[in-house]
């Protein structure tokens, strides 16, 4: 097996699946190493010359990508077994052969491309927005203390990549747990001076089937987050708020 100091060649194994209900298989590719190569460049090289390492022509690999700078959240996949963004996965920092697989907690569309609509639906469910009256001119927004901004800004950098769901043991086909990213958004909107006015509605939506009480505190999410969001803090806080709300009801707390 070539090690990571062998700079001539990059050995990549990709889990292929031509459609949602087809069983997957692996294909191996030999690529030419270049400086600062990342997994996206590997996938592009394969697209330009889709031939496996044993010389068999195949199809280009389907995958999701867009910004290539870890801010759009598209290119999450399993790389050497780890949920991460392909654009920031540098070949020189990876053991070879590099094994690339789709995320397992979302339905596969084709190859590495997955359907993460579940997360966007969850954002709807918890009302992850500030309910403004309208876009007409109503003057300035509320003053926000700098310390709230400094707490809120990191939460607002969530790219909905799904890595926190991927690594969470509570997210599985038997359990519709919404995942850390969603609860962290609840926390974000509930700390905003306007968002706070509707905090109870969001907390209520964060409970129940797939809700916060399903969190088993494995703490994998915070490690997997590419944006370093303090997800476990968010989970703990929403959990506390949910307890308060269920104990004291809508009037108190």
């Amino acid at each position, binding site marked *: 097996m070539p090690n990571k100091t062998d700079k001539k060649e990059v050995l990549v194994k990709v889990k292929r699946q031509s459609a949602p209900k087809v069983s997957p298989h692996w294909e191996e590719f030999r690529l030419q190493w270049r400086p600062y190569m990342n997994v996206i460049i590997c996938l592009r090289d394969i697209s330009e010359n889709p031939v496996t390492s044993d010389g068999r022509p195949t199809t280009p690999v389907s995958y999701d990508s867009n910004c290539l700078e870890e801010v759009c959240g598209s290119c999450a996949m399993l790389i050497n077994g780890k949920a991460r963004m392909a654009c920031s996965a540098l070949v020189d920092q990876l053991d070879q052969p590099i094994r690339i697989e789709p995320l397992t907690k979302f339905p596969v569309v084709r190859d590495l491309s997955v359907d993460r609509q579940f997360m966007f639906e969850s954002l709807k469910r918890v*009302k992850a927005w500030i309910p403004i009256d309208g876009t007409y001119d109503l003057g300035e*927004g509320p003053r926000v203390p700098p310390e709230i901004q400094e707490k809120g800004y990191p939460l*607002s950098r969530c790219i909905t990549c799904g890595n926190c769901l991927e690594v969470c043991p509570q997210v599985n086909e038997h359990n519709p747990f919404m995942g850390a990213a969603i609860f962290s958004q609840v926390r974000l909107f509930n700390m905003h001076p306007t968002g706070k006015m509707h905090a109870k509605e969001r907390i209520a939506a964060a409970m129940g089937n797939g809700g916060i009480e399903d969190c088993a505190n494995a703490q994998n999410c915070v490690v997997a987050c590419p944006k370093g969001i303090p997800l476990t803090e968010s989970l703990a806080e929403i959990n506390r708020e949910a307890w308060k709300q269920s104990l004291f009801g809508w009037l108190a707390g």
Partner: protein
Amino acid sequence: MRQPKIIVVGGGLAGLMATIRVAEAGVPVDLFSIVPVKRSHSVCAQGGINAAKNQKGEGDSIAKHFDDTIYGGDFLANQPLVKRMCEAAPGIIDLLDRMGVMFNRTPEGLLDYRRFGGTLYHRTAFAGATTGQQLLYALDEQVRRHESEGKVQKYEGATFLSAVIDDSGVCRGICSMDLRSMEVTTHAADAVIFATGGIGAIFGRSTNSVVCTGSAQSALFQQGVDYANGEFIQVHPTAIPGEDKLRLMSESARGEGGRVWVPKNPNDQRPPRTIPEGERFYFLEEWYPKYGNLVPRDIATRAIHRIVYQEHLGLHGKAAVYLDVTHIPRETLDRKLEGILEIYEKFLGVDPHVEPMQVFPAMHYTMGGIWINGQDQATSVPGIYAAGECEYQYHGANRLGANSLVSCIFGGGLAGPAAVKYAANLQTGTEAVSSTVFENEKKRQQEKNQMLISNQGSENPITIWRELGDIMTEHVTVTRINKNLELADSKIRDLQARYHKINLSDRTKWSNQTLNFARELENMLVLARVVTLGALQRNESRGAHYKPDFPERDDANWLKTTRARFSDGEIQLTYEPVDISQIPPRPRRYDAAK
């Protein structure tokens, strides 16, 4: 009264703002986007959004924002609409603030503002160094709210193929392709708003996202929608070189005090931090003492090119200069620039807090785009509106940093109600149009797919695309020479000929990204010619368009808008006057006060 229906194509800032405005008007809206809208390219905008709030007591005003924008754009922008944008900008900031954007704050809890290129005022509101992401999310959240109330129907993972235009030349809907089933469908609408963003992909590598191919604009152009000022391409001075992408290093790094320099001795092998001040050449500060590191982007880009290619002072003989923030306190960097410094560290493995960043200019933005009128974002085809980077109105020959976000939101906010008004006033709506109009368009697009899938040629679409990018980057970016532009155009036409011999390595019918890319490529080739021919014709230097053989701005001959038309398969360029009714043109120079 009949209920009109609107389609928005594109889910970046402009498209989302248009969607919100249409939904607010109580009109149903279908929103089409290649990617889930939350993953749109607007997330890549970093530094901030401009509005003359004068929150630092510097005497800033809307008139100054307006003047900076017109002057920065080298007087090519039509002035009335730009003025309206600058007037609207403070209200746009208020709106975003009300939507909950986590803007940086002053100790008093007010919005903080930073300096940006091409102005002497602190005019740029910001949320760390990921302002575009934060703004996009705010609008995405509002659209999601309207969606949950049934006012917006999203079609994510669908790409626009063509407009459905009836026999009288009126747009009646769109033809799109689902990127999973690859099914081609038509969708009726009384008006369609396009907010399809940038065209970076025709330059191969750029700071743009993968979806920024300009394919939609080009498809519309080929259907008779005019395209304006295509030759004005912004090359951002500071990006991180990369093979898959040239990642932007925001102007905010300089707005917060970052300095650009090279060692005076090109053979200096010492680590940058150990090179004494006296042996460093801060060329922007020296050449442009008034604006220093915050000259507009076209000026900074040409200065870096001069340092590298004429003065031969590039770092270690390479095409790179230092962008240095190591002297700025770490606490400030973490609070105001964290997002971008993290990108540098992640992709290069070097910590910019302790070592100056190595950067070089990269294609970043198109000032040109779909021709729209001077009032309400309407294009040359009735029923088609455009907003955001895909249209041409707001930035003239060079866009000032942090003006793009405001132009997207302003333009989108204008297009939404304009489309609603147009649709409501239609004598006959799209429901009265014969179904054969839709069927014919669908058939035309299906046949294109079939041709591509079955073609047995020898050409790989990615290879053609790479060659296109090389041609465009070499000849049609910073320095333009007529004989090279002629060569570039003939090479693009060669690529168009080779395109007919395309061979897809994927002929399957499910989620075929190769097929979609091949379709985009055909459109990219046409748009690349529009950019190149516009540049070839314009014998002057203005803003981002620089010809060493014609080094001066030539108002007598070239103070005019390039307007490209597609007729009988040919690109025709015509010219129309620029509205300079507010500010008379004057020489643009940044080495002294203006």
